[in-house]
């Protein structure tokens, strides 16, 4: 049970409202944050895809030189695609495990 002084304290600490535009400012900031996060995720995927593209471009240059050089590039490209596929699959399986184990 609170005494009168404590009730006075409650009165001194009644909740206040923020400014009328606070809600709109927060929602705007949230949208910006979501955009930035998606851009960051896209950057990670783009980096992985760029590695494949770099291998493809390298393959085009080496293709003119020799069959062995061409095969080397194709192999690296295939390796990059394989790693990308395994990366996506591993992340998905980890998240499914997380969902199942969290229940």
């Amino acid at each position, binding site marked *: 049970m609170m005494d009168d002084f404590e009730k006075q304290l409650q009165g001194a600490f009644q909740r206040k409202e923020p400014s009328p535009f606070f809600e709109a400012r927060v929602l705007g900031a949230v949208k910006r944050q979501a955009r930035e996060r998606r851009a960051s*995720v896209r950057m990670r995927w783009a980096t992985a895809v760029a590695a494949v593209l770099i291998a493809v471009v390298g393959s085009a240059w080496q293709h003119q030189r020799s069959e062995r050089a061409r095969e080397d590039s194709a*192999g690296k490209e295939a390796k990059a*695609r*394989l*790693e990308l596929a*395994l990366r996506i699959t591993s992340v998905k*399986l980890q998240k*499914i495990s997380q969902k*199942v184990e969290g229940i």
Partner: protein
Amino acid sequence: MKFAIPALLVVLPLAAQDVKMPANLDRLEAKASEVVNVQLDGALIQLASRFLSDKDPDEANVKRLVGGLKGIYVKSFEFEEKGQYSPSDVEELRAQLRSPAWARIVGASSKKKGENSEIYLKTEGGQITGLAIIVTDPKELTIINIVGSIRPEDIRDLGGHMGIPKIDIGNGKPDNKDKKDKEDDK
């Protein structure tokens, strides 16, 4: 967590892709903000394997895992807005996975979040011959088909190796999370 699988693991020779990706998925590419499309048949997998080092333990492990595979196919779409694809887009695929050769070994869904994750294994004569994964949430659709003998946990456990993120099972985020997030905010 262990995925329930048959005891024997034997590689069988197979055709390239044992789950046909529905043609209607192609039209989703125009709506998606991010598309990943990886198609590796047996020949490409063997070629990639030759470029995995036997001396690097991680690459040697991957080489062993993929050695018997006949195909790896990944289609992943990310959308800016919800409702850019419908459950019927995936229904043709699910119909294929209802055949007797396939068994759904994991299904986890959240109606509240609109998320659904499924893992299917194909077995023939008691041996694993294929793996299919379908993951849907309101802004993402991912379909993975691996042809050949593979255990899901072997790929899952690649997390933390070869640049593959290891998801912290406790909070579902990669371990290299933003340092600004404070532990005491949880």
